[in-house]
């Protein structure tokens, strides 16, 4: 913290109290409840519950649909990160170079960031509907598109819907990262290396590493949690459970299936995954990058 601080016996608690109070009631209470659910078993009629140890966890590990959701979530976050990251970087590099129209490009590429995932899902719904859908017709003519039976086609559907708006976020952060690179570094590198492409990969891209890793985390978090609205307005997990993310499955099992034990165990598994990603970020990535 700061070297110079206020010394006081009580006023710091006045400043901390509002947030701590809200967190305790609306965050810690539900989290404790989640843990309690995860370790108890409710009987089918909801009359009573008993301590179940790790039964709920054993149950989800023996459930093949949990692994389907796990597999899908991993593939989905990987592909979304790859697609949105590379398109965002490509566009940011171009926008950073052009002399004219920079701010117009910037404004027009930024605003889809503000659109809700659920709205994007509803829009994608129209483009992939059998009746009106332009993309449905296009893909159908190419190879016989049928997302509610074919897993590959359903993947394409949710990947396009999920990637689209996230390109904007990647573009914003890459552009800001590029603009933060010192002009003199770039000018010096022009003298040493004439090839544009080589200069990008040897000078610019390594300097963008902090932004890149930051965006990887942002994109993974987006694919894990924010895509809920997209899945719920597009495939609803079809075909079967093939396009259910872990969060979506926990919601369906808990809220629709009323299996609180399983939902609680699934939530705790997700917390562990997020924790691992965060530790990985701090330990390995933050340590290995040099911020100037």
């Amino acid at each position: 913290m700061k070297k110079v601080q206020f010394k006081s016996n009580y006023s710091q608690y006045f400043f901390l109290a509002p947030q701590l109070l809200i967190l305790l009631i609306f965050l810690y209470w539900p989290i404790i409840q989640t843990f309690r659910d995860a370790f108890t078993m409710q009987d089918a009629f909801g009359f009573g519950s008993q301590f179940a140890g790790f039964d709920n966890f054993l149950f989800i590990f023996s459930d093949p649909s949990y692994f389907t959701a796990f597999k899908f979530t991993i593939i989905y976050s990987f592909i979304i990160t790859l697609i949105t990251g590379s398109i965002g970087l490509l566009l940011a590099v171009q926008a950073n170079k052009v002399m004219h129209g920079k701010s117009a490009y910037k404004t027009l590429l930024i605003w889809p960031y503000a659109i809700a995932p659920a709205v994007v899902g509803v829009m994608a719904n129209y483009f992939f509907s059998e009746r009106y859908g332009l993309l449905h017709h296009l893909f159908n003519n190419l190879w016989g598109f049928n997302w509610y039976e074919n897993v590959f086609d359903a993947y394409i559907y949710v990947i396009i819907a999920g990637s689209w708006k996230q390109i904007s976020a990647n573009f914003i952060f890459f552009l800001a990262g590029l603009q933060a690179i010192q002009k003199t570094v770039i000018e010096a590198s022009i003298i040493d290396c004439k090839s544009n492409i080589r200069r990008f990969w040897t000078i610019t891209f390594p300097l963008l590493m902090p932004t890149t890793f930051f965006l990887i985390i942002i994109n993974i978090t987006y694919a894990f949690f924010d895509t809920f609205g997209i899945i719920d307005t597009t495939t609803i997990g079809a075909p079967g459970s093939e396009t259910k993310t872990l969060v979506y499955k926990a919601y369906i099992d808990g809220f629709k299936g009323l299996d609180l034990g399983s939902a609680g165990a699934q939530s705790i598994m997700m917390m562990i995954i997020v924790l691992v990603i965060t530790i990985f970020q701090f330990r390995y990535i933050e340590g290995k990058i040099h911020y100037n």
Partner: protein
Amino acid sequence: MTKFISSTINHFILSIGLLIMIVPIWIIFASSTHSSLFINTNGLQFFLGDNFIDNYSRVLFKQSGFFNEITALKMFFNSFVMATGIATLSVITSLMAAYGLVYFKVKYATFIFWLIFITLLVPLELRIMPSYIVMSKLNLVNTFAGLILPISASAIATFFFRQFYKSIPDELLEAAKLDGTNSLRFFIDFLIPLSRTMIAAVFIFMFVFGYNQYLWPLIMTTSEQYWTVVMGLKTMYGSISDRFAFVIMSMIPPVIIIIFLQKLFIQGIFQNK
């Protein structure tokens, strides 16, 4: 000459990017200005029709929902109240908490720090069912407080403000202390004015975040009176062009805010880095 070619390539790639980002929305918008009959026979449209005013005014004022108890206008009002509430509450509590963490010697400081920041690992989606149970125990289902409070229970904003405070030179507090300024005065007279850009950026971020909430309002509002725009999308019934018009209108408030305040938003977010 090579300069000309490379700049043409830059503009070409950017234009493709623009097409990808804008054409989908344009098509939905163009289609929303046709009658449903026309859409049903001819599919999505690329050119504008002449039903713009008809469609949009019908959607805004028509009673919809299962029980016909709510208009789109009311949904916009609800979303606006929810988003403003979330943004205001987050900014105020986070600004204060970050101040308490950075500028004071606090007993158990590490513990309180973790108590606040560990919450970043637990988004609302992970505690949705227990949160609902807690809210119904507190009698907050179907209230604005119920929509706002759990979403404001987030440490993201605290994290931003903490980073920002740490970048402020220590000399400021030293000088203020010499003048005999107390902690409340220092907060109000020095820190808040200094954090203006940051406050604006966090407010915009939280407003868009709050407005775009989908799952929580879906669960929390069993009464149609509290439906928000984003959840209205899924539950609204109506003809196809009504739904197109509704989709377009639903994205207007956050998009306008981002377009007009983008400079402030980006400045604030990157002040930290």
